[in-house]
């Protein structure tokens, strides 16, 4: 078992050589290293942080935000081995088939491939995130045997299921750094450097390949790495930052010939208390609030729009969960009693619940990351996020919720109150998922995407990007398991390409 290397001990001026350099030790970087274990490739992985949180390292993430309120950039990410998984909630759900399609009502939509391309990797990704056996949309029946589902009439919304990551000791969820440290140490063809910050990518003079990159440490060491191939796995924000800051050969930055790097940033808005759901019959099953362990698969239901409904109503993805019991006001009680009586239902024990959700945003080139004039402790320019959410994004979710309300009425099982109507109400309720997506989007056309279908940066023969930054559209599904699947696909590509 090899120890990790503390980059702060590498003498300045050292030049390291590798077949493959992975920059970033989050879920993508770690999954890639694990997938390429025991290959002939000499691999180096560079992680900015150590094994634990360190405030000075974390501060390298600080940046500015303008527009719609967003989390501080240094608190929506984690900069130590394991990356974003260190503050992950463990929520998993695969992308839907429609997420890959070019949808007429979603500008800039369409992946270079369909879901079939990712399906072979889902099982291994599910294993890596330790989310139990694959049972997402096959859980209605077994969970109904535990306790009845709240009935829905036929329509555009269905009960889907989240699964949750767990560690071996059932402590939620799997933190990739802790969980896979020993596995990484056992990989004979891997050297993992901690406290190693990539600060500059250097293109060859023809800008057609990456020549090397600089690494700096917070104790002042500086060295460089000359890899045959490099994969950026720093997360959607930091990948864009490093590419934009590396402007010595290409003035606009690496891979930014068409001014796309940093654009199309997205996260999943998580507005709180978007609706009130009433169950006429009273208490609903406990698994609606607290995930339920069904033979090793930890499950929680979510209301999702069907693909057909997305097409007919022109809505985007959303995943709606029941959160906590709430009291009704006079109007609410009157509405529930009047409706239940009209439907011939007893609502004497009716219970009301607050609803929360995660939303898919429409791709927007103006929701973007740019560099500021401020610099961090390593001299890297800091980021600024210009955040946008369109009214259409809220309106589309409202349509989905209204359909859910219709289906509850159709089943005579309950009803819904839509809590927000104005933009101000929506924005005030916004929280975010810390799911950074889309700044190095994938597209076959270099004018529309930063990376190609294999996640290789357009025009640069030996530079790839891993992670959810390459997602051209975002789904409502939480990205971790999906980005791991995409990374495993990249690993297979690299095995072929680097033979």
């Amino acid at each position, binding site marked *: 078992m090899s120890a990790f290397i503390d980059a702060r001990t590498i003498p300045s001026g050292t030049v390291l050589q590798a077949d493959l350099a992975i920059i970033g030790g989050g879920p993508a970087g770690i999954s890639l290293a694990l997938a390429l274990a025991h290959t002939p490739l000499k691999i180096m992985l560079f992680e900015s942080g150590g094994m634990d949180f360190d405030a000075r390292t974390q501060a390298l993430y600080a940046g500015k935000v303008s527009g719609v309120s967003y989390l501080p950039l240094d608190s929506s990410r984690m900069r130590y081995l394991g990356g974003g998984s260190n503050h992950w909630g463990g929520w998993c759900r695969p992308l839907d088939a429609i997420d890959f399609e070019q949808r007429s009502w979603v500008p800039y939509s369409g992946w270079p491939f369909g879901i079939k391309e990712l399906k072979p990797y889902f099982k291994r990704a599910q294993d890596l995130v330790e989310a139990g056996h694959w049972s997402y949309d096959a859980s209605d029946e077994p969970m109904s045997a535990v306790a009845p589902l709240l009935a829905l*009439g036929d329509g555009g919304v269905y009960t889907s299921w989240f699964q949750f990551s767990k560690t071996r000791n059932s402590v939620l969820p799997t933190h990739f750094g802790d969980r896979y440290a020993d596995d990484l140490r056992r990989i004979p063809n891997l050297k993992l450097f901690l406290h190693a910050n990539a600060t500059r990518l250097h293109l060859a003079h023809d800008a057609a390949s990456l020549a090397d990159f600089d690494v700096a440490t917070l104790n002042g060491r500086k060295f460089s790495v000359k890899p045959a191939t490099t994969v950026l796995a720093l997360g959607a924000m930091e990948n864009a930052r490093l590419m934009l800051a590396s402007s010595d050969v290409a003035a606009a930055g690496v891979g930014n010939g068409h001014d796309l790097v940093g654009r199309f940033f997205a996260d999943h808005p998580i507005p709180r208390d978007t*609706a*009130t759901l009433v169950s006429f019959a009273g208490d609903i099953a406990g698994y609606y609030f607290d995930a339920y362990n069904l033979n090793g698969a930890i499950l929680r239901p979510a209301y999702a729009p069907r693909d057909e409904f997305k097409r007919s109503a022109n809505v985007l993805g959303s995943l709606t969960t029941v959160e906590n019991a709430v009291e009704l006001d*006079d*109007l*609410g*009680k*009157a*509405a529930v*009693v*009047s*409706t239940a*009586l*009209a*439907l*011939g239902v007893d609502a004497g024990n009716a219970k009301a619940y607050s609803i929360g959700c995660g939303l898919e945003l429409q791709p927007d080139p103006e929701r973007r990351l740019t560099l500021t004039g401020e610099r961090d402790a390593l001299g890297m320019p800091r980021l600024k996020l210009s955040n946008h959410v369109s009214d259409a994004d809220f309106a589309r979710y409202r349509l989905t919720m*209204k359909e859910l*309300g*219709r289906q509850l*009425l*159709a089943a005579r099982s309950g*009803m*819904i*109150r*839509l*809590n927000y*109507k104005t933009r101000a109400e929506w924005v005030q309720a916004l929280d975010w998922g810390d799911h950074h997506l889309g700044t190095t989007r994938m597209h076959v056309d270099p004018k529309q995407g930063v990376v190609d279908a294999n996640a290789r940066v357009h025009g640069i023969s030996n530079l790839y990007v891993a992670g959810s930054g390459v997602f051209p559209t975002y789904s409502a599904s939480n990205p971790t398991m999906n980005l791991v699947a995409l990374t495993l696909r990249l690993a297979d590509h690299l095995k072929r390409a680097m033979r």
Partner: protein
Amino acid sequence: MNETRVSRRTALIGGGVTATLFAVAFGLTLPRLFGRRYAPTPYDDLLAHLVDRDRAARVGAEIRLAEPKFDGKAAARELRQRFEQRDIAEVCDADVREGRLAEVGGWVLPESLAELCALAAE
């Protein structure tokens, strides 16, 4: 002179019957005296479908507030067509099936029910 003697048993039975008659008469009269009475409206045939007219009126007041120009007569004309030989549950089911929904203070209701509520609030 013969005294007509009423046995204790007969008195008890008679008293019981009288009390019962009083109770029944009182019970029948009380709601008329003190119960909720509604002024006649042009929509009583429709409002008869509502089981709890007071609660419906509370919902209807919200509609009136949001739509001050709510046209009760036009709504009633439409509702009478929908209710022809159907009960309120059937009408609401048809609304839900056909996507005729109204939002009242955010609550998603069958449209016909919402209109009935608005008439109840007139």
